[in-house]
């Protein structure tokens, strides 16, 4: 899923200066799972904004709502009749949701309420880690099911580099926590799978046109189009 993290309240407050009627809009998709932008978080943010507002002696109208998803037009459309009641929206969806809102409601400022971080997994309650960078051409079949593009700090295709130490990546000392060396993991996994031979051949260049570097990407499926 897409993982996100709440933005500091101070930052959100700075966007909202001068707006009177504010909607805090949660999304019940990914960001609800990682407890950054679901209904629960929208309620907390709206409440905090109201308290701030009371303290400042302002008379802003701050409300909250949460949609099933903000990355689908049909759910965004649920707001059609309500949008006139607001001057600005703080969307707690991922970056895609924030932008989709802005595309549908072009007259209203839509501010992000979370920082969208990565595609990842829930390690345990309260701990989320990255797994995929959506490079557009999955090579997991070659690398024992562990992605070097994402797990290797240098995106190496022929790792591990000379900085790998006791299973940890060379950047561990810099980020202040143990980061697994992706290539060490790949090596151990290939060994288990009896596929160590994959190491012998130098890997070819990756085609980055399928990634960010190819410009905004799209998928068209004629078979499922109406």
């Amino acid at each position, binding site marked *: 899923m897409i993982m996100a993290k709440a933005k500091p309240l101070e930052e959100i407050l700075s966007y909202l200066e001068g707006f009177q009627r504010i909607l805090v809009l949660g999304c019940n998709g990914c960001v609800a799972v990682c407890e950054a932008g679901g209904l629960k978080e929208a309620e907390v943010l709206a*409440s*905090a904004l109201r308290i*701030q507002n*009371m*303290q400042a002696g302002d008379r802003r109208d701050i409300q909250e709502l949460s949609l099933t998803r903000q990355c689908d037009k049909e759910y965004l459309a649920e707001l059609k009749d309500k949008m006139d009641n607001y001057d600005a929206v703080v969307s707690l969806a991922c970056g895609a949701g924030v932008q989709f809102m802005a595309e549908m409601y072009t007259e209203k400022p839509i501010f992000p309420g979370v920082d969208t971080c990565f595609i990842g997994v829930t390690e345990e309650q309260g701990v989320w880690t990255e797994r995929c960078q959506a490079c557009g051409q999955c090579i997991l079949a070659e690398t024992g099911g562990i992605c070097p593009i994402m797990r290797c700090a240098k995106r190496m295709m022929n790792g591990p580099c000379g900085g790998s130490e006791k299973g940890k990546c060379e950047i561990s000392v810099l980020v202040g926590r143990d980061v697994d060396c992706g290539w060490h993991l790949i090596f151990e996994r290939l060994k288990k799978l009896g596929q160590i031979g994959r190491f012998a051949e130098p890997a070819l260049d990756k085609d980055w046109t399928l990634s960010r570097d190819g410009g905004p990407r799209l998928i068209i499926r004629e078979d499922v189009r109406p």
Partner: protein
Amino acid sequence: MRLSYPTNIRIIKVPCTGRVAIIHLLKAFEKGADGVFVAGCLEGDCHYQSGNLRAKKRVAYARRLLASIGVDPERLAMYNLSAGMGPRFAEIAREMTAKIRELGPFLQPSGRTAAPQATAA
């Protein structure tokens, strides 16, 4: 046993402090409380294992939230005591009320004023 604790306290009973969510703490302030304290069981004594520990983390989080919107985080606190410690409860209530009185009303005179109030959950 008759205990005297300040009458301006509203007690909201919950089965376990683990049930107290951040939104409940904030709502109390929204509704006009000048201070809030959560009275949980002694650490290690939670009937549901770790309800009070979770409450502790949420209180800490909510205190940070309050600080970031300019509210003195001292207005929110967590205490641990057992059900048999009535006098201790009264003492905490007095302590908290005194502290909140010192901080003054949550809303400045220009806004809504209220007598110092504390809410205990």
